[in-house]
């Protein structure tokens, strides 16, 4: 199963440290360089604030990803329990963006890469579960209120099993009465 990071709106205080953590993790040391163009600020998760809720939203790493199905370039694939975009193959057609029901994909400029008309290259960008980054998803690590959790197969399975047992116990009790 693909893993995913989910936010708990009861714990989230909307501080966006997760977004900063995401950028720092993906940009590496560039972020501490003085040259303002040396890094791009492209958080792969976004804080949503409405009257009811504050919580970051990011890719759910679907098992049957609509983005992957929509991509005409074969730039989206599943790897290491995550749905990953190979930006070198991406041409910015926005099909994935349109297909994703969660708004989890953005189009971002790639620093230092240009199109034929001299404009910066724009490609799809989304959560990659910090693939290849030591310590796993940075957003989970930096959240000051521990509002973000990396959900893996076992935890989800355990939670479901626990719920099934509870449901069975309740039905059993009903049957006894």
């Amino acid at each position: 199963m693909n893993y995913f990071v989910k936010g708990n709106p009861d714990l989230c205080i909307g501080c966006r440290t997760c977004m900063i953590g995401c950028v720092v993790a993906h940009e590496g040391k560039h972020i501490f360089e003085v040259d303002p163009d040396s890094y791009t600020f492209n958080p792969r998760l976004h804080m949503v604030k409405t009257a009811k809720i504050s919580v970051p939203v990011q890719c759910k790493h679907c098992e049957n990803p609509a983005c992957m199905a929509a991509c005409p370039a074969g730039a989206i694939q599943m790897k290491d329990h995550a749905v990953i975009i190979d930006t070198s193959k991406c041409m910015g057609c926005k099909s994935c963006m349109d297909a994703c029901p969660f708004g989890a994909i953005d189009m971002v400029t790639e620093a230092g890469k240009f199109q034929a008309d001299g404009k910066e290259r724009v490609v799809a960008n989304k959560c990659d579960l910090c693939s290849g980054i030591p310590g796993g998803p940075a957003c989970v690590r930096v959240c000051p209120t521990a509002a973000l959790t990396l959900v893996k197969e076992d935890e989800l399975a355990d939670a479901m099993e626990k719920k099934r047992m509870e449901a069975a116990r309740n039905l059993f009790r009903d049957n006894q009465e």
Partner: protein
Amino acid sequence: MKKNLGSFVVGDSTKCTGCKACEVACFAVHSRQNNPVGKTVGTVTVPVTPKLYLTRFEQGCMPIQCKHCEDAPCLNVCTKGAISRIDNQVIVDPEKCIGCKDCMQACPFGAIALLPYAKDGKLAAQAMGETKVFASKCDLCAGVEGGPACVRVCPHQALRLVDPEAEAEEKKIKAAEALLMTKNWR
């Protein structure tokens, strides 16, 4: 806030009947820009050259048109500089197009067709009496009042103008609100 991404139109094959009203409307509004085309069929004196293409496939049909890619292969491949990005949209200049077909090959959607180029109510001629052609593709009705004509005329609302940024924002809000319902997943 300023838009950063190109919008595009997508078809919905579950609604499309294949009537081609979109193609005819597309032709009508664009043809009007450099030909004396009125509102009725009889005013037309040039071939129908749409910028979107009704496509039949195993499960049905729908119009296919340009996605206005952000790193557009057609733009990148065009040696003549006939394809440019204007107000976020990828636009072909038919005057500059020499019909090399590179963009057609680069486009992964088949959204471009070579069609005769007409001007002032006549087919444009080139040397040796041949008709000039151009790479015809969606320009999202740039300069057309009321926005994409295909979307407006579809009798079944099978075409949708996508503002990817605005839609992503709406979808994010829905996704966030869904988290309220799954917060006690354990």
